[in-house]
């Protein structure tokens, strides 16, 4: 179990973390969410002992995290390995640094490449690979030594759908193996796909934390999605006729219906059945993670709306802030 208690971190005058506390249960996939600059990557870097916290503590099973480096596999947000060294050479090197016996390190690296379906790149140099394949290799490096805890910081940024799917499969395997996977992202759809528990960080603090399903259930359950065969107009008319239907908005093949009260679900179902509308589906419409996020952390980054553009946007924003010669312009 990972416990973060009262974590504070300042960078000059900027407060990156402001008393963040959260708990990551063992063996779950945990989503670390937040807007750009919320403190996700700072939290991860403190956990990885890349830099120290100003206050607070990070514990893994009661032990300070910096004492347990071998238990964690890390895929950093800023991807990078040696561009001019072969993949096998680098992976063998990093395997040895992670404490794997030198005699076994090369074989472990080869096995991990095979697991990631990347054997063909064994003797290739990193800079000859596409971005997606580089990402695969980076993930393979993070999984060397089969760590109990895997931290993935924006793992799918910059990937096309096919490569993203390959990586998702690899991540899902880790989840299925019962590893603790901490998944930091601002791409809600992917977090929702993988994660059991989540925390939303805003301005260095946790604004909501817990099991995703429980969080969704905690919201009013007065919205339902109704689909019907045939003429949608008939269904719409039937819905409009009910006084407790506040709103019926087209959604996909049906309607998203907002009721005055969650208790009206069953009466509505009975009424629609009696009205003879050929119902196809009737289910409670839980809020999406994006909706929860917007409510808790304000408007999301426009990049969330388009997975393809999401990865370019932060870089573009960063580039806009740079001066003529690539230096950061003064604020």
């Amino acid at each position: 179990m990972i416990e973060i208690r009262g974590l504070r971190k300042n960078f000059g005058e900027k407060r990156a973390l402001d008393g963040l506390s959260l708990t990551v249960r063992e063996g779950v996939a945990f989503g670390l969410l937040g807007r750009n600059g919320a403190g996700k990557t700072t939290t991860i870097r403190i956990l990885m002992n890349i830099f120290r916290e100003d206050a607070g503590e990070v514990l893994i099973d009661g032990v300070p995290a910096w004492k347990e480096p071998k238990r964690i596999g890390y895929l950093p947000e800023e991807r990078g390995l040696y561009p001019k060294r072969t993949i096998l050479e680098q992976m063998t090197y990093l395997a040895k640094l992670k404490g794997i016996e030198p005699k076994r390190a090369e074989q472990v690296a080869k096995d991990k490449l095979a697991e990631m379906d990347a054997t063909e790149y064994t003797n290739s140099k990193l800079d000859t690979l596409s971005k997606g394949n580089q990402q695969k290799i980076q993930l393979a490096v993070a999984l060397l030594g089969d760590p109990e805890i895997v931290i993935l910081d924006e793992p799918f940024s910059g990937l096309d759908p096919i490569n993203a799917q390959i990586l998702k499969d690899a991540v899902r395997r880790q989840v299925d193996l019962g590893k603790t996977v901490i998944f930091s992202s601002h791409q809600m759809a992917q977090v929702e796909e993988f994660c059991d528990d989540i925390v939303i960080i805003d301005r260095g603090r946790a604004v909501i934390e817990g099991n995703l399903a429980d969080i969704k259930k905690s919201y009013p359950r007065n919205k339902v999605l109704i689909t019907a065969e045939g003429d949608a107009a008939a269904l719409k008319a039937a819905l409009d006729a009910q006084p407790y239907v506040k709103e019926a908005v087209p959604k996909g093949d049906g309607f998203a219906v907002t009721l005055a009260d969650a208790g009206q679900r069953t009466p509505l179902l009975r009424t629609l059945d009696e009205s003879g509308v050929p119902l196809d589906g009737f289910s409670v419409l839980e809020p999406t993670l994006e909706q929860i996020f917007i409510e808790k952390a304000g408007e999301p980054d426009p990049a969330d709306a388009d997975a393809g553009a999401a990865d370019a946007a932060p870089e573009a924003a960063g580039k806009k802030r740079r001066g003529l010669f690539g230096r950061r312009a003064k604020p």
Partner: protein
Amino acid sequence: MKKILTVLAFEYKGFTGSKTFRTVTIILAALLLIACFLPQIIAGFKSVGVGADMPERTKGVVLLGGDAAADPSVAALFTPDALAQAAAGVAWTDGAGEGLTEADLKARVEDDTYNIALYYEGGTGFDFIAKGNSMFNYSYIDFLSAIVKQAAQQAAIEGLPQDAQEEAAEIAAMEAVPNVVAIGGDAESNYWVGYLIMMLLFYMIMMYGQFVSTSVVTEKTSKAMELLITAARPIDLMVGKVVGVGLAGLTQFAALVCAAAVGIALNMPYWKRSGSVFYDLFASSNLSGGLVAFLLVFFFLGFFLYAFFLAALSSTVSRQEEAATIITLPMLLLSAALGLGFLTLLGILPKAVAAVVSYVPFFTPWVMISRFTVGDATPLGAAIGAVVLAAGMALIAWLAAKIYRVGVMMYGTRPSLKQIFKLLKRA
């Protein structure tokens, strides 16, 4: 220790395994090997054969005129055999026997018939003719001066009354007899060895220190640093990197030394006879095992001190262009150190100043080598210097590891010294 060796091996293989490194090493070794054949090539152009007919290194011609030519006792001092006995390695020819005049001497030196020429008419003055004004001419001038002085004294004594001549001859023959008690280094014999080691160390740091800087910045540019910091302690990464890269540089250097050694061994007869003063100087060096060990200790400690310093500075930047700027400081220190070393070797730097400066780690290798070479440092003093240097190197290595660790987050504009200190304090 295991991780240090892992990093060391990785860095070492990274450099020595690269095509560029191997190609450059081979080319440089080949060029050096060819350069060692130069005396043979030059001899070939001068149509000089090998073996018994090979000429001596320097060809000289002596011509007497005026009173000197007329005085048999003076002339006896300037025969080719007499001059050869005074200075081995010069083949003298009697200019009068060749029918030369004073005017011919310049022309004969100009066209390389002779390397040096002496014209003496009597008294204490003489003409020494040579091409250019090489610093090595002074060795010939010195011994010729002694012979001319002897000739002048002899001629003056002959002009005295008979009963005074014997006493005058005794007075003229009086020489100071120094009893040289050399403490520590033998400055005269080992001057060139000390000079060579200082220059080698300077160039080694200039060339291979860049390797270290490049390696650190490459890790930052490629963002590999963040991953490495999570896998190993910064001190392991730093020591492994600097030693590994440093060894790669030393490997290249060793390959060049081997190439030079093979080249010189194959051409030894030509190097011995081609006027190579260097051969004489090194052949006469009084190198003991202790002195060699001393030189090597300071060489390696000095090299790695600067290598760690360069690594520390390179950790604060994230682009190769910035690295080229930031290593200006160590390069300036390096130049100052070499300058101080030379001044100490030449005896220009006051001894008290040299003594103090020789315990400043950035200057210790050069100044201590010089002090030891000229016999100004005791073995104990040198040992203390080595300890100070080793401690300085260890401190710089520790600091470099700290900066390397906080440097992982230094991207973009180069941080100021104040910012670096703040980050170090917090680290």
